[in-house]
């Protein structure tokens, strides 16, 4: 009996220990990645890196065009994706009952969209936006040379907008749900129509949520490289992109090419670590501000 008891204790210690070990392993992963990039990247961060253009076949100089291209890309992506995602969320939470068929189909599609591999979005961007829409526009406008029918900033942004759509929809819908039912009912009882209620009551009270969705989408979109591989990103450019049809440099793509296809990988190693740090800084700032806003939002909801 005592033997049985001690075996049970041992299993218990083992069972709890295994979970603790898993957490320690994850913490190890987080700290080793962060530590590596901080230690190896921080010494090479400088103002000239952030502000200068690359020189000598991208082996020297700064990464300003890549930062500029990434910023421009996520900006256009946000302008394209966030309105659509917000409207979808409004439709799902304000105009439909949760158990009706069509909203369930939409939810299924949103979840499926979130699970589609990012490289497939890249193929979709190439096959649909560049080849179909872009060339269609060229034909319609009568362009002799390919203006829209080539990889470009606008197509990369559209592809990323499609990729980040689920992120926006889910977080905006969550935000819309934090608006209390009483406020909607009060508005409707005072004679406002449903659209007036949404426009004047629900949306102003969920702007933070929409902001969170946008920030999360940007954080996700800024780090994705696979979808823009064939839809507009290039390794080096003579000048900054000057329109939505030009190609652009991108931090993540820059890092990828520097570390795998550069003729002299070792020489650019400091540049690679510094680029990684800039990219991480960008995505983490965005993600943490989103998490912060969201936790404030949840507290507000709890407080009621």
């Amino acid at each position: 009996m005592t033997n049985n008891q001690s075996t049970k204790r041992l299993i218990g210690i083992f069972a709890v220990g295994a979970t603790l070990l898993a957490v320690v392993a994850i913490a190890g992963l987080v700290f080793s990645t962060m530590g590596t990039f901080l230690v190896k990247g921080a010494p090479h961060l400088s103002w000239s890196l952030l502000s200068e253009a690359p020189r000598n076949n991208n082996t020297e100089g700064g990464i300003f065009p890549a930062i500029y291209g990434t910023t421009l890309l996520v900006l256009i992506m946000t302008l394209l994706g966030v309105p659509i995602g917000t409207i979808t969320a409004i439709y799902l939470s304000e105009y439909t009952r949760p158990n009706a068929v069509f909203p369930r189909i939409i939810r299924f599609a949103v979840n499926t969209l979130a699970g589609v591999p990012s490289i497939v979005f890249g193929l979709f961007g190439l096959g649909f936006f560049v080849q179909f829409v872009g060339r269609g526009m060229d034909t319609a406008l009568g362009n002799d040379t390919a203006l829209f029918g080539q990889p470009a900033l606008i197509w990369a942004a559209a592809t990323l907008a499609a990729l980040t759509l689920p992120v926006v929809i889910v977080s905006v819908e969550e935000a819309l749900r934090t608006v209390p039912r009483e406020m909607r009912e009060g508005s409707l009882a005072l004679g406002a129509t449903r659209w007036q209620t949404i426009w004047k009551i629900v949306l102003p009270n969920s702007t933070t949520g929409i902001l969170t969705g946008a920030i999360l989408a940007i954080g996700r979109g800024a780090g994705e490289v696979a979808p823009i591989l064939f839809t507009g990103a290039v390794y080096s450019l003579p000048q900054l992109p000057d329109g939505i049809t030009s190609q652009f440099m991108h931090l993540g793509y820059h890092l990828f090419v520097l570390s795998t296809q550069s003729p002299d990988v070792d020489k650019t190693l400091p540049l690679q670590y510094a680029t990684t740090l800039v990219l991480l800084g960008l995505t983490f700032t965005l993600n943490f501000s989103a998490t912060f806003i969201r936790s404030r939002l949840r507290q507000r909801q709890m407080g009621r």
Partner: protein
Amino acid sequence: MESEQTQGITPPSDISSKKSSSQEHPFVRRKSNLGERIIERGIALVGGIAVVLIFLILLFVLRESIPLFFQPESKAIGAKSAQTDKNAQKASNDETLKPDIYNPDIILNSAESETIFVPEVYNPDVSLPTQVSSVSASAPVPEEEQDESISLANVLGNAWQPVSTRPKFGILPLIIGTAKTTIVAVLIGAPLGILAALYAAFFVPRRLKEFIKPMVEMLAGLPSVVIGFFCLMTIGSFLQTLFGLDFRLNAVVGGIGLSIAVIPIVFTITEDALSAVPKSLLEASLAMGATTWESAYKVMLPAAFPGVFAAVLLGIGRAFGETMIALMATGNAAMLSASFADPVRTFSATIGAEMGEVIWGSPHYSMLFFLGVLLFLFSFTLNAITELFIKERLAKKLQGG
């Protein structure tokens, strides 16, 4: 679907029509109602965009891959791809290469090389049907030989050599490569994610509670290209010196990298599933005299099992679809080997690596899109299983139980 949309909008228009009948400002009211009705119709239309997007993705990825399997279009696309490719140039004056996959290309290239062989990078392959048909009529291609070359045997073969005079599109090495990295990733990532979620749910000291979730979110926030870079630079060398491996980049290194992407997914979904189990189960178990770990492992985990299963499935989906990590950390050699210490090449990495250099419209191009179709279908299936089967079952189990 149309009827569903209108159903969704019916309540607001009902309300507004009642309002307009209440005599106060009939004219003004009605005008705004019309505007609102348009807005609401618009919202319903935009709401369906996610559904449309899914269809568009499948449609257009499939559309680009179809020429691979259907003769007429293969000819057509091939004809349009008169491009500055080394294959085409090499073969343009070599008529002996006839029984080849690239055959239509090659012959037509030679026929057209004077006229269309301009340094134009993108061919308008959608907008030129008339020219194409005339070209393919002027350069007849032996049908039987073509049927042989684009056969299923080639696709199911065991060599992936897309860029050669006699290209081989055997996807077997890619399947094996993808399977190897996915297995490693899930074997590492799933237990870590599940156990960490158990710890966070049941065993965590109060002080650490606010610490674990941000940590996992940090891991989730790592861009995949950064994870790939980390594997390439650090994990690869580390494992090589530790075990004395022949190859610095191999299936295990890639798998470890992918597991970094898998852990947050498994953790989050498992945690959701555990917190969806009613607290009364845990309380009952503890009240019966079970210890915390017994309650966690023997009551709560089985109760949340469908959710955990869904977490693992979605983890698999992430692992096999992930591109940048696989592209940077697996070594990218399409080898047919069972060893996990050999370099591998996955589906997604193949698309990522080769699409940049391929001729638009060539069989190779179509083949890469076909790989994309396979990826899409696989992820769609996994997702459909979790959505339709597992979540339903979980809900039923927790409500009925």
